[in-house]
């Protein structure tokens, strides 16, 4: 039932999210539109209340500007009829907060707390200041002979559910793919697991979104999302080797 409520609210805000965020960054993963819709929902809620607050604010400044011979009212703010100007917005904020919390947790749960069945797993090794991606190769299994090892270039196939195993060799890094709306810190000594499912094809930025030292500003990579045919061709060409970068 929760999922149903979630889907219903999401469907209201999805077009706005597409307009706000989707127009700036392509919607590239199965959960990107969830995040965009959540952002739209928050934008509508705070936009509405913020606008109301501004209207009240500027109206009061204009209405009660200093006029000759007119004194200010003596009001303590504890009068019942005045207090409701505070207590009603107060209640409205609580209601909005509850909706935002519900939607935020549903989105979060879907992306970060559950791990759907994977079609393939990639290992992402971060280090000062480069990305090393280990693809499972044609057999679909990591740590076998046909693994494909690349620097600063991640090849994935559209429509497949990927798990990632994110590790760091030195300091904190953050695997960030804006078109996926995905971020995850890499922590030395730990394997961070997560998932994504690309829904479009093309070549996009991978960022390191955690300060990682002098070269943080050059620690970018590209993600190449391919059709099944392209991906199969790339894999058979490069299986078992350290593939050289094809872009950049």
């Amino acid at each position, binding site marked *: 039932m929760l999922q149903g409520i979630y889907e219903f609210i999401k469907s209201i805000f999805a077009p706005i999210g597409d307009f706000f965020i989707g127009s*700036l*960054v392509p919607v590239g993963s199965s959960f990107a539109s969830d*995040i965009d819709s*959540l*952002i739209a929902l*928050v934008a509508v*809620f*705070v936009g509405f209340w*913020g606008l109301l*607050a501004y209207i*009240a*604010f500027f109206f*009061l*400044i204009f209405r*009660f*500007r200093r*006029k000759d011979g007119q004194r*200010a*009212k*003596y*009001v*303590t*703010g*504890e009068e019942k009829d*005045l207090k409701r*100007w*505070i207590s009603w917005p107060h209640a409205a*904020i*609580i209601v909005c*907060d509850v909706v935002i919390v519900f939607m*935020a*947790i*549903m*989105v*979060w749960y879907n*992306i*970060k707390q559950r791990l759907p069945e994977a079609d393939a797993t990639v290992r992402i090794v971060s280090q*000062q200041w480069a990305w090393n991606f280990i693809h499972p190769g044609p057999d679909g299994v990591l740590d076998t002979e046909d693994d494909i090892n690349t620097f600063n270039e991640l090849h994935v196939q559209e429509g497949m559910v990927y798990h990632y195993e994110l590790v760091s060799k030195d*300091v*904190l890094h*953050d695997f*960030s793919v*804006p*078109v996926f*709306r*995905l*971020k*995850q*810190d890499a*922590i*030395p*000594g730990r394997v*961070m697991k997560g998932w994504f499912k690309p829904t479009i094809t093309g070549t996009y930025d991978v*960022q390191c*979104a*955690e*300060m990682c*030292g002098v070269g*943080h*500003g050059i620690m970018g990579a590209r993600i190449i999302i391919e059709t099944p045919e392209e991906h199969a061709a790339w894999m058979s060409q490069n299986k078992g080797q350290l593939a050289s970068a094809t872009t950049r």
Partner: protein
Amino acid sequence: MDVAKQGAARVGDDPLNGIDMAEAGSVTVDTHEAHGHEAHHEQSFWSKYVFSTDHKMIAMQYMFTGIVMALIGGYMSYAFRMQLAFPGESVPGYGLVSQGEYNALVTNHGTIMIFWVAMPMLIAAFGNFLIPLMIGADDMVFPRINRLSYQIFFISAVVLIASFFVPGGGFGGAWTAYPPLSANAQYNLTPLGATFWIVAVALEFVAFLLGGINFITTLMNSRAPGMKMYDIPMVLWMIVIASILFMASVGPLIAGAVMLFMDQVIGTGFFDPNRGGDPILWQHLFWFFGHPEVYVVLLPAMGIVADVICTFARKKLFNYKLILFTVFATGIISFFVWAHHQFVAGIDPRMANVFTVTTLIISIPIAEMLFLYIATLYGGSIQLTTPMLWALAFIAEFLIGGVTGIFLGASGADIYFHDTYFVLAHFHYTFFPIAIIGFYAGITYWFPKMFGKMMNEALGKIHFWGTIIAFNCIFIPLFILGAAGQHRRIYNFQNFPDLAGLQDMRVFATMALIVMLAFQVVFLVNFVMSLIKGKPAGKNPWKANTLEWTAESPPPHGNWPEGLPNCYRGPYEYSVPGREEDYWPQNAPPDTAPAE
């Protein structure tokens, strides 16, 4: 000054409150012994300006140090914004910005603006200046601790600036200093810079701990006879609650700073996973302090704004008690929200749900506080003087900072927005109103009291509009860049093909920054010119109620040599019906006839 007479005058002043009086009097005597005899001698330059124990002089020391540090921090922002707008070109007045320098500039811009600008100017300068004057005391309870606090603060500033001139240069691991980057020289390549940085920050904390003890004790013990808890001006409540929050939150971070220092210097490995440590531990210690810290600097600014608004709207603060309770609520809840900075940092994902809830809860008292401020305008007689413009601008700009925080507190949306320019724009919409607008509201309001001269209104308004318009032109484009996925602390976005095309907005923001910095010259000119030939202010130029306006401008050593004031009512009794004047100073004895 005759110490015994002072104490005695106080006791005699209010026959109704004899017992309280005697206590208050004895405190006065103690503090006067600390420096009372100095007043007999002609004070030398050193004892008057450098080793002073006078709260007003210490306030000035903090304020001018803060202004100098703000200029340094502003200069840094100029250098790195120019690099972003025109990557790889030599910045006029700086030179080429290398990758490492870019990181050091960004890191220290943040560190300076929070720890060496917002804190000294808002808490220390206004706290020191206002607390004794607004409660009708002649000085702080612990004047020498107060002096020590500034001396340690000064040393901390020197250490921080020195960090730029050591081999390897300044620390560039972001103001959050996450290990292992900050802990290992092999990773950050600034072995001395990183150590100087953490030592400077730790010293700064010690300085503010000492200052905070003084503020809290003074407010609780040295109030004028008759000043009850609900008669304390809001700005003092806010400064003291901020000091309490600081004292309660800084302990873990000082512990963390010691551990980080030992990791750096003797290789202990508290935060090194290869040796049994945990880098996430630092993040918890840092943000357990770091989030309450936001409210530590917010509250004094909110307090300044409250006092300014009441004076220039000629209005009583709308529901004083409710505002105070929302401050208490905010203070307490602020200890339960820290991990919203760490949603994607590798904490247990279930924890994010808890912190989403607490973070959205804290929006309630803060929003309520803003509503109450806006409601204070209702029925007022609003005079748009320069201080009032700043105070109103604080509300208008902070509102944007507040509502954009909701996006980041909602865990699901933060997955995308984390560490983007959206975050950056969000917290500049909170910290700029706090540290800059709040400071300008305060300085333009209390300048007449501090220096005995009026500031120029025309220059004040030019400065105001130039700063406010330019400020919005800097940061609104950065919201858009953040929404487009632009991530933080990157010295050249041309390295990221998807982001490279948005260069126009970066150039625009940089230009707006230069305009804003240029307008600060107007303020400095106004400041100096007003000092030299401003109109004499008199005791109470704004016709305000609070006690500081009953002292001479500027107040002499001891504040009220003729005898300390008593307090008869709350601080915001403006426009009371049936009275001829629209203000009613706190020290004015009640009307003998039952006028009310």
